[in-house]
């Protein structure tokens, strides 16, 4: 039987690519020593984690969730509150925050995933926005921090100045390298997990459901069950991204819920290629560079984000990753039909 070979091929190939990408980033600080640039790469890791998970959820599992920034915020807030209120160690707070994110996704998923398509998008968006409004309108003081009122969920200012990874004492001048490799580790976990999910059995089930829910159901693949699994697993990894974000910046606040932030990450997924494996990485890098230039041109960030979304959806709905594949096939020539 040739089936196992066919199924095992792409996983190993994509895992190799993943390991190569991670190794390249691990060696990058040898050439790139500027602290500002290393900081930008850390931001890239964090957004790439969120974008890759969104791609798994939306492009492969077919769940159009607009609550992804809610899970980032859950990870960030969970980490901040664990450190500030429960006195947890940073390294213990990070996995706990990620688990909290997955649990939140489980609850939201069980409520929303009876529905499909646009209904899911609208409900997840409404839930995220509701939590946003509840957090910023909260004025009841939970504790006092340095004579300032600190609300249970941070109110309209959020949490800041809590413990970070602790590399400032340990590595002194090179503390940014400590943060770099910590976030890279989280990024590596996400990349490998996404490849295994997309090209493993779970991914096959996701695509079967996305392409033909009726046929998938008739072969024993329960749409709701698999979509809830996808929702919870990607929320765990998205929450992890949020937790390392909070630990790196020592900040967790309601700006994470901004519509423009949601659109920023969505544009990374769409520009890179929805439903591909590596598209979100390309998209994240490209959109970060484009937005950096846009800042120089008189704050045109949102304008460019919006235009990129509209233009790509109309002209290249499968994104740059698909475009690249097609281009590569054309260049190789049409003398090998059927491959």
């Amino acid at each position, binding site marked *: 039987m040739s089936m196992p070979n066919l199924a095992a091929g792409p996983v190993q190939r994509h895992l190799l690519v993943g390991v190569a990408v991670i190794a390249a980033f691990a060696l990058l600080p040898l050439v790139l020593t500027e602290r500002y640039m290393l900081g930008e790469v850390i931001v890239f890791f964090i957004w790439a984690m969120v974008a890759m998970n969104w791609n798994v959820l939306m492009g492969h599992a077919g769940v159009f969730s607009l609550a992804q920034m809610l899970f980032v915020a859950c990870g960030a807030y969970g980490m901040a509150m664990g450190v500030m209120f429960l006195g947890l160690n940073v390294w213990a707070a990070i996995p706990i925050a990620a688990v909290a994110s997955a649990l939140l996704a489980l609850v939201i998923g069980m409520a929303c995933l009876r529905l499909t398509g*646009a209904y899911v998008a*609208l409900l997840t*968006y409404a839930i995220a*926005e*509701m939590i946003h409004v509840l957090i910023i309108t909260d004025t009841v003081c939970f504790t006092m921090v340095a004579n300032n009122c600190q609300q249970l969920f941070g109110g309209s200012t959020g949490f800041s100045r809590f413990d970070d990874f602790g590399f400032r004492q340990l590595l002194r001048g090179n503390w940014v390298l400590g943060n770099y490799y910590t976030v890279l580790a989280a990024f590596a976990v996400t990349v490998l997990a996404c490849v295994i999910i997309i090209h493993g059995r779970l991914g096959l089930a996701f695509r079967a459901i996305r392409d033909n829910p009726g046929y998938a159901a008739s072969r024993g693949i329960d749409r709701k069950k698999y979509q809830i699994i996808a929702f919870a697993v990607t929320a765990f990894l998205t929450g992890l991204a949020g937790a390392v974000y909070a630990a790196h910046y020592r900040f967790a606040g309601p700006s994470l819920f901004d519509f*423009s932030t949601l*659109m920023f990450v969505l544009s990374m997924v769409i520009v890179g290629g929805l439903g591909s494996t590596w598209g979100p990485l390309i998209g994240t890098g490209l959109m970060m560079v484009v937005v950096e230039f846009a800042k120089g041109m008189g704050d045109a960030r949102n304008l460019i984000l919006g*235009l990129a979304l509209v233009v790509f959806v*109309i002209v290249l709905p499968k994104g740059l990753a698909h475009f690249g594949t097609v281009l590569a096939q054309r260049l190789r020539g049409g003398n090998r039909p059927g491959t």
Partner: protein
Amino acid sequence: MEIIIQIIVTGLTMGSMYALAAVGLSLIYGTLGMFNMAHGMFMTLGAYAVFTMSSAIGLPLILGIVVAMAAGALIGMATHLLMVRFMLNSPEFETNILVATAGLAIVLEDLVLKTYGGYPYPQPVRIEGIMRIGGVAVTYQAMVILAVAAVCICAVAWLLLRTKFGRAIRATAINRDAAQLMGVRTGTVYLQVMALAGALAGVAGLMISTLTTLSPQMGGDPLLKAFVICVVAGLGNVWGAGVCAFGLALLESAIGFYFGVRFGFPVMLMLVIIVLIWRPLGLFGREKVVRL
């Protein structure tokens, strides 16, 4: 008693504005199968158009409403001609159009912010004064909002049910291919629907801005409420959207009064989710038989 009248007046005023927004949103979804994330910006642009005209030449209320409708209809038609038209036949239309209209929303919001700035201007076109009903002070503006919404919704109902134009829209909504085969110009119908929904959004925006102030983000909150209303009514169900708008607004104002304003929307959303667990296609949604 006075409290109950107060709750009903607030609920009906909010319900009128939600209904104007939700009916347009639902009409677009029912006909084109597209969810318009930019609908909130249609409202904002309607309100700003009136503000601009009014500061330049000074408008009476009736003309203000006309300007808001015209601005909303124009932006709706422009959206169709410049964007939606090219995507109608794409394979994943439902997802793609959500993304595209969300992109449009953020572009429009940025343009409004850059043109007018973030200053919360008051809307100049409005009526001052109050009257008393059973000991409760009711502003004339609230009465105007109720009247305008009632007229607009009756006009839409008449258009959809009693005219040839409405029959073409309903036919296209039920089955696009069959309507086309019967000689309905579906492209024109789509354009008309976008114009009609845009006009309703423009009026809604004007009404909302008379109660609060103008700001680039003013459409966000009513849009969110309109989403929830459309979902609970069943997407694309225009009548259900109108009924649910008033029902949910009354509920929201009652909860807001007894438990505090910030819990009005969350409790409403919780109830909506419970309703959806019981009826996944919304209160008024009908099961569609899907061939596999």
